[in-house]
């Protein structure tokens, strides 16, 4: 059939659209390389709560990164032979912060506040995944607008007006 080209074109378009959709959905969740081989798993298994090191999500927009002082509070005595810990100690002595690479980063034009999210009954794992099982922390979800909206739009009628409003996150 000479009309093959039409059908071929149609198939090409369909395949193109599907491939595009898949490619945008597929996300490589590679963990960034941190300056110090810190393991969340070791610390969580030792019984430390999230809020011990990241103290402020309940009362401020940011969760907070522990200071080197806080690390040294324990590591003055724990596992001091470990070369990684010695590296932390050297940061402590030089008085410089550890240049951690941020894993869960929102762009400048997104206003994110931990406080109302925790106030609404979410917990850390909802968005950050089971960090306690991760040796190296990585993102478990692609934190894009569609992901935020998935929650914000499925709210009760009196809330959705505010939560699905653009000004909820963009100011």
């Amino acid at each position, binding site marked *: 059939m000479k009309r093959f080209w039409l059908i071929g074109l149609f198939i090409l378009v369909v395949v193109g659209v599907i491939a595009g959709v898949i490619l*945008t959905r597929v996300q490589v969740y590679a963990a960034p390389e941190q300056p110090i081989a810190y393991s969340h798993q070791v610390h969580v298994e030792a019984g430390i709560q999230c809020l011990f090191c990241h103290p402020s999500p309940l009362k401020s927009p940011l969760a907070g990164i522990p200071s080197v002082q806080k690390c040294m509070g324990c590591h003055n005595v724990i596992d001091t032979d470990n070369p990684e810990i010695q590296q932390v100690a050297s940061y402590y002595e030089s008085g410089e912060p550890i240049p951690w690479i941020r894993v869960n980063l929102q762009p400048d034009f997104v206003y994110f506040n931990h406080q109302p999210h925790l106030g609404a009954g979410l917990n850390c794992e909802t968005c950050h995944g089971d960090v306690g099982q991760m040796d190296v922390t990585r993102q478990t979800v692609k934190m*894009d*607008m*569609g*992901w935020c*909206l998935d929650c914000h*739009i499925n709210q009760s009628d009196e809330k959705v007006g505010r939560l699905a409003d653009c000004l909820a996150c963009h100011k």
Partner: protein
Amino acid sequence: MSESEVLAYPEDSSAAEFEDRLLLAERTSSEINQAVLQPMFRTSWKFWALVIFLSLLVLWGLFAWGYLIYWGMGTAGINRPVYWGFFIATFVFWVGISHAGTMISAVLRLLKADWRRPITRGAEAMTAFALMMAGLFPFIHLGRVWKFYWMLPYPNNRLMWPNFQSPLMWDMVAIFTYFIGSTLYLYLALIPDLAMARDHTGKWRQKLYRVLSLGWRGTEAEWHKLHRALSIFSVAIIPIFLSVHSIVSWDFAVTIQPRWHSTIFAPYFVVGAIYSGLAALACILVIVRKGMQLQEFLRSEHFDALGKLVLVAGMAWVYFWFAGFIVEWYGNEPVTRELIHEEVAGSLAPLFYLQMSANLIPIVMLIFKKVRTTPWLLLVATLLVNVGMFTERVLIVVGNLQRNFMPFNWGEYSPTWVEVSIVVMTFAGFALLYTIFSRIFPYVPVWEIKEGRLRYTVRRIGRLLVPTAAEIE
């Protein structure tokens, strides 16, 4: 050469006159083919010099566009309150130019006006290329052009669709439609001529024509279907071409800016578009005729008829302009008064009087048959129209934005080198595309001319020999 230059009718001979109008009665088919094909192969150094010159202008304009994107809109002359400047004015101008192509081709095809035959292709090509240039400006004038895809309607994870209430969305959809329509219209009518060119050329040209003519053989069934499709196109494209410029005018008319917020804007823009488009077509035909030696196809009666259409469109434009103006003048609202004052006696007065004279003088000129049938006079008249219509667009866009309800926010506008370069780029780009098109594709629609020849016989009425048309379409 000198004889055909003047385009005068041979003296007092009705027989010679109708031979002129009989569309090459004495030529054989293959001679017509060659008469159309030969000018495509003849390229002198002047042609290449023109191509290089135009390409350099386009490259410079592209550099200016890159500069504009890299540094931001501030490199253009626009400011607050004149948020829109030369870019939008030129956009409106190009959309206007694009209107005459379908006007000539579709309307005259429907009306079965025979003089359209040799000029339809040139007109349709003008529409397509003018729209390409017009289509650049919405991108050029975007502050963040790399985000233009947010205007496209497709499912996305932002759960945001474009705002179909915005005239810019209508604009985008309408211009895209018009572009598709005019390009397909041009192409469809081109297929039989491409087949003709395929049969009479060699090398790369034959390969190109072979692919583009899609295997046209000229069977009865093919002709029948082509005719059918062309008549559907002619009917469908007329409402599109009316809607496109109406929508462009609504970009302005839906705001509450004084003098923009006018109900007459849509028809006023459409009439202005036809006026400038027909003038541009006449102007291009004069130039192409000279450049490609197509004197035997593009003859005085075509320029005469085209000149009459420009004349009628010009008078209609004056009527619509006046109808809009008198109401605003009589209304005498403070801001409108200030805007009109600014135009007729203020800083915009030079532009205003340039616009009025460049639009009105050609109307007076075109009353005379001598002007309509003398190429250089016609060229002067139609170039004037285009100067006038470009100025008119600048006045509409810039002039009305300089003044507004809040006198504290009044401002002035003058374009920078970036804007001028980009505007020149589109003119050069249009000329470049058109020049190349005229050497690659048969500029004169051969099959339409041959079809026209079929229609005519000569009848004696009293003392006169009169050409008579048969109803074959």
